[in-house]
């Protein structure tokens, strides 16, 4: 037990996490590439054409996993931010900082692909329904987090202020979702639910799940690569970082 605790804290220091992140990075990148290839293969060649929506429905293989990841990453980011705030660890705040752009990218991707899917299916790029609106608000929350981080010069203060904002945001996300659910108009109900059998073909579900794994691995790989840059930038005064930069 004590042994494990020591290891845990050892990797809490940027100096020992930097090489670990470098070793993990190629694995996650490879997993992302492989599962992405399988997922796209299922999406384009295996999954049958939808009876009602035709070929356009294939956008959901990108759209749904992107929306999942955008929400999930916000929670992960808030967790790292909270840990950083409570334990006052530098690396946790750097992780939160590294995740934010990826989450914002997925939120944007979900909105964009949703608009492209809505045009042939609903006949409009945008409707003011609960999920679209709350995804848009989530995108703004990401932007606010990154803007606050960028506006404060002192990195330690920026970490802590942005962490408070992320925690406030994570409390608000469900409230925002339920508040915009008032005018639930055009969006179909959830296609995948844990409580009942999914209302779609098995292959479609598999394609979406594999794509979700691909996005997940991609997020980890990108976050690790970004956190390595942040570590080098912040620890540029430390001996180990200077040595790495010199090489």
């Amino acid at each position, binding site marked *: 037990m004590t042994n494990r605790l020591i290891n845990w804290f050892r990797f809490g220091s940027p100096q020992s996490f930097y090489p670990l992140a470098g070793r993990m990075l190629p694995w996650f990148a490879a997993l992302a590439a492989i599962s992405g290839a399988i997922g796209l293969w299922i999406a384009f060649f295996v999954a049958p054409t939808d009876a009602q929506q035709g070929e356009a429905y294939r956008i959901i293989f990108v759209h749904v996993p992107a929306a999942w990841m955008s929400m999930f990453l916000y929670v992960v980011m808030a967790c790292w931010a909270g840990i950083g705030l409570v334990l006052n660890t530098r690396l946790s705040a750097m992780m939160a900082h590294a995740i934010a752009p990826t989450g914002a990218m997925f939120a944007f991707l979900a909105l964009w692909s949703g608009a492209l899917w809505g045009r042939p299916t609903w006949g409009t790029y945008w409707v003011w329904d609960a999920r679209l609106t709350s995804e848009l608000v989530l995108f703004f929350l990401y932007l*606010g987090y990154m803007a606050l981080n960028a*506006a404060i010069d002192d990195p330690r203060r920026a970490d802590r202020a942005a962490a408070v904002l992320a925690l406030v945001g994570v409390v608000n996300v469900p409230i925002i979702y339920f508040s915009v659910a008032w005018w639930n108009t055009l969006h179909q109900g959830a296609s995948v639910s844990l409580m009942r059998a999914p209302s779609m073909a098995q292959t479609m579900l598999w394609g979406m799940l594999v794509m979700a794994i691909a996005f997940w691995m991609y997020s980890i790989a990108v976050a690790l690569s970004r956190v390595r840059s942040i570590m080098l930038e912040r620890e540029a005064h430390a001996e180990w970082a200077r040595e790495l930069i010199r090489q």
Partner: protein
Amino acid sequence: MSEPSIGTAIAGVVRRDLLLAARRKSEPLFTLGFFVLVASLFPLSIGPEPELLRRIAPGVLWVAALLAAMLSLGRMFAADYDDGTLEQLALAPVPLVTAVAGKVLAHWLVSGFPLVIVSPVLALQYGLPADVIAMLMLSLAIGTPVLSLVGAIGASLTLGVRGGGVLVALLVLPLYVPTLIFGAGAVDARLAGLSAAGNLSLLGACLALAALFAPLATAAGVRIALE
């Protein structure tokens, strides 16, 4: 010296902030003037048809009130941060949360409450019937404190930060979404002849939640800014 009770501390902060606002008469009036101006711009841009104006009035008046409340957020802590008063409040023998709660209450009294008082005049310009005006005042009376409470978090986090004014808008506006929906929704429901009870209850729930958690988050933000 005995420690002051929490009630005394809040009252002291409120009294001080109200006194400062009374000495600088113009600033609270800016908020009010902004509210009236924005609300009067909509008929000029959309057209004077009474039917259309009545239809959009709840949303327009609520958005105008929200923007006016947000504009005044910068003043909530900035002056006290600059002259060191905020540090003294943080060192006081009562928890910082109480001082923050007092400042939020004072902010609402200076820039939220006047909006509630003036809103009937604007509602008359938009041709709303009397019972809808009463509902507008009620929803603003419950909703504007939420705007002050949630806005205080944004104000504390952007203390002494570059481009603070625009940044506050980016941080706070997404968090204002539920208040706006329930507040304007209550007025809309009354206008359509429906019961506004559901929207009002949810607005009240937002107020209860914000009153509980927002001062804590704001106090954390103030402490981070003071380090």
